[in-house]
């Protein structure tokens, strides 16, 4: 029997550390070779860490949310034969405590850690090997077992307890009482509130809900939060909303889909819009750019790498279709759909999440009338599309039913003037309203 240590592998170029977002195993589990043991989050992508051996998990190197340096011990297994390590993880970790402080919970953090485990509803096995964490449980005061109460009887409680329950919007009939005859004291009420009991009471009634649920912002959600804050705080946004008559384009799209039904990828609006962006930035290359504001340089790219904001279970992802200018409608359509699938099932590669030069965001049917899209930093423009619907439009003689759609485009006002922004939006409008122009070489 020996100890086999798996270290956090190199999860991407230039990445020094990754955030531990999920343990797939716990101490004592048997793991086969190639079984996934953990998932870590890098700048954008979630990476799964497989086991290279078969064995039994003996030590876990961190808790969910910890940042683990690349090359640091991630997990240890007890294996047949010699293994690759002689140091048991706990010892190793304590020896390395100076350099890896974030991977091990400090006693002061232990309580927070235990709360975290209750929120995620997933065991955080590291606590089982952490004496500090188990101590924090023993601090909880012993609580007398609550007595069941016969149905239809009024709960026993002093007037002050009843008044407080009323104030908190709690039906005392649901509160377990620890006193004789199930009498409810102030502590019982406090416990009930603390344990979120208040929330379970008559959710339909309009009583005060004093419950606070703490959700740790970790992994992808943290990345999104950082990115959004960076973008919105750094970039002075200017947003222009314009309406576009999509009638003709919709006719064309329907016709194309009908013609190639079953053979080719079904065309959504996105490939047309990508095409329009490619055409529009040909005239305004300053909008297909990445602005390195610290260096004071706007990199205008030849490649039109279009980011597509994609909703996944874990939150917003921006998949990037590289070189949209070099692909036809169907190729772009295929790529968009493939990338979206990959993003949703978590298999997307880092390169397909980076390198965008301009982004499209769409809420589909939820698209509302207008949105104020946030630019995907360090890009300088984003095109948001809103819900399409038939609206009456005056053609000079009468109202015509037209398939209208609003587009909401935001620009980095530091490097894009309002005038240029307006020109871009008008160009998009023109192209989308007369789709033939999309395919005429400019």
């Amino acid at each position, binding site marked *: 029997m020996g100890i086999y240590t798996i270290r956090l592998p190199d999860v991407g170029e230039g990445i020094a550390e990754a955030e531990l977002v999920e343990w797939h195993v716990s101490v004592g589990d048997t793991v086969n070779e190639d079984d996934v043991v953990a998932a870590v989050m890098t700048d954008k992508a979630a990476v799964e860490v497989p086991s290279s051996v078969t064995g039994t998990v003996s030590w876990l190197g961190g808790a969910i949310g910890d940042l683990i340096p690349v090359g640091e011990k991630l997990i240890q297994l007890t294996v047949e034969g010699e293994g690759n390590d002689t140091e048991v993880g706990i010892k190793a970790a304590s020896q390395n405590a100076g350099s890896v402080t974030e991977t091990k919970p400090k006693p002061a953090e232990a309580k927070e850690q235990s709360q975290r485990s209750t929120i995620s509803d997933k065991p955080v096995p590291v606590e089982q090997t952490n004496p500090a964490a188990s101590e924090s449980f023993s601090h909880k005061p012993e609580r007398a077992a609550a007595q069941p109460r016969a149905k239809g009887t009024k709960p026993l409680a*002093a007037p002050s307890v009843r008044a407080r329950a009323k104030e908190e919007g709690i039906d005392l009939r649901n509160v377990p009482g620890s006193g*004789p*005859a199930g009498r409810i004291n102030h502590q019982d009420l406090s416990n009930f509130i603390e344990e979120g009991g208040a929330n379970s009471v008559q959710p339909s009634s309009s009583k005060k809900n004093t419950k606070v649920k703490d959700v740790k912002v970790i992994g992808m959600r943290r990345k999104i939060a950082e990115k959004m804050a960076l973008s919105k705080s750094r970039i002075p946004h200017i947003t222009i909303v314009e309406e576009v008559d999509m009638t003709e384009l919709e006719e064309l799209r329907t016709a194309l889909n009908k013609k190639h039904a079953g053979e080719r990828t079904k065309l959504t609006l996105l490939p047309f819009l990508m095409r329009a962006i490619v055409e529009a930035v040909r005239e305004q290359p300053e909008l297909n750019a990445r602005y390195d504001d610290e260096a004071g340089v706007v990199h205008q790219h030849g490649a039109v790498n279009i980011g597509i904001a994609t909703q996944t279970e874990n939150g917003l992802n921006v998949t990037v279709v590289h070189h949209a200018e070099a692909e036809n409608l169907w190729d772009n359509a295929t790529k968009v759909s493939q990338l979206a699938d990959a993003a949703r099932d978590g298999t997307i590669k880092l390169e397909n999440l980076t390198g965008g030069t301009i982004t499209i965001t769409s809420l589909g049917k939820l698209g509302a009338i207008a949105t104020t899209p946030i630019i995907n930093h360090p890009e300088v423009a984003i095109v948001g599309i809103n819900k399409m619907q038939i609206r009456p439009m005056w053609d000079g003689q009468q109202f015509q039913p037209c398939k209208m759609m609003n587009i909401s485009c935001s620009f980095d006002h530091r490097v894009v003037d309002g005038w240029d922004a307006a020109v871009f939006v008008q160009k998009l409008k023109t192209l989308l309203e007369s789709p033939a122009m999309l395919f005429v070489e400019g």
Partner: protein
Amino acid sequence: MSELKCKLLIIGAGPGGYVCAIRAGQLGVETIIVDSQAPGGTCLNVGCIPSKALIHAADQFHEIASAASGPLGISVGAPSIDLATTIAWKDGIVKRLNDGVSGLMKKAKVKHISGDARFLDGKTVTVQTSDGEQRIRAENVVIATGSSPTELPFLPFGDDILSSTEALSLQEVPKSMVVVGGGYIGLEIGTAFAKLGAKVTVVEATGQILPQYDSALSKPVSKRLQQLGIDVQLNTKASGFHKGKLQTDQGDIPADKVLVAVGRRPRTDSVGIDELMLSMDDAFIQINKSCQTSMRGIYAIGDVTGEPMLAHRAMAQGEMVAEIVAGHDLSWDKRCIPAVCFTDPEIVTCGVLPHELKGAKVSEFPFAANGRAMTTEREDGFIRIVARPEDDAVMGIQAVGVGVSELSATFALAIEMGATLQDIGATIHAHPTQSEGFQEAALRALGKALHI
């Protein structure tokens, strides 16, 4: 005609109304209270307080009159009483309390208007004052008009046919008095006049006096009535009064005065409440747990909302409504309303009676085994606890005995606090007091009685 506006208008300055007004005033709610009587309502003017004064005077007189025949070795001559002086003394107490209530309301910045109120609509009331008609518009109205003695058509009040109000202001003790109605009001006043020397007969239509209580509780009272020479005629229906004789289906009973005490009815008609078309429970105004009536902004408290017609219930309701009007979220969640019957001996009830709780654990401790009771020459009565069988939670407490009215506080507190038999049994009760019987009753229910 001027119009006044306020946030809260209270019609009726009885215990419910004036408490509501004081608390509302304290909470900064602009409040007007209207009543044609001096503040204090039935309770203070013609009910609780005057009757207790009369009962006290009668007790004193009776003690002295019977002292010579007692075991204490006291000899006195035959006493006499000038009832007019007694009544004047009683009126002085009432006046003091009227002034006290007025002062408290004034301190709370409540405007008191004297006169008869009448609803014009749900928000507007006119008051006939001595200076003319006063119109008042209010955001919230509290109906606290109380109740009045029920009149029997064949025994209309007037001359020798008295309601409790007149009985409490008699200037001399009648030679004979027939009390129609064996409820607590009739028995309290009837007993007092018997002690003062009147020949008292109680006529009760049903087969039991104090019909709201079980026979164990009323039995010591029946026995005492007999000792005092009060003739109780059960299953007897009065039918009229003619030439100094009360006519009943069991024959005529001579009577200088007839006290009709057959209950009280809510006072809704004279105020125009009937025209508001509020939802009613029989003759009473229907209210919810926050004392709101079926009309928004109109509350009702006290006797006008039904049984039990008790001043302290009205006070608690009044206080609650004031808080609600001031914006606090409250509702009625009292576990018990103690009730005291100032008969001889007194009866206290609090919470459920034995027959009202299935499988109840019932335990009694008789005052015959209580040292303090023996030293006051009165060993009649007992304290009784009704507990939930499964967990010994105390659901009801009753007592009958001299002076037990003061025990009502500890009984109510035990129930409101959710006490169990063990709690009461483990609390030290001072010796020698009647209250020891409370602890003993609890211990007895637990099979651990010490003194019985």
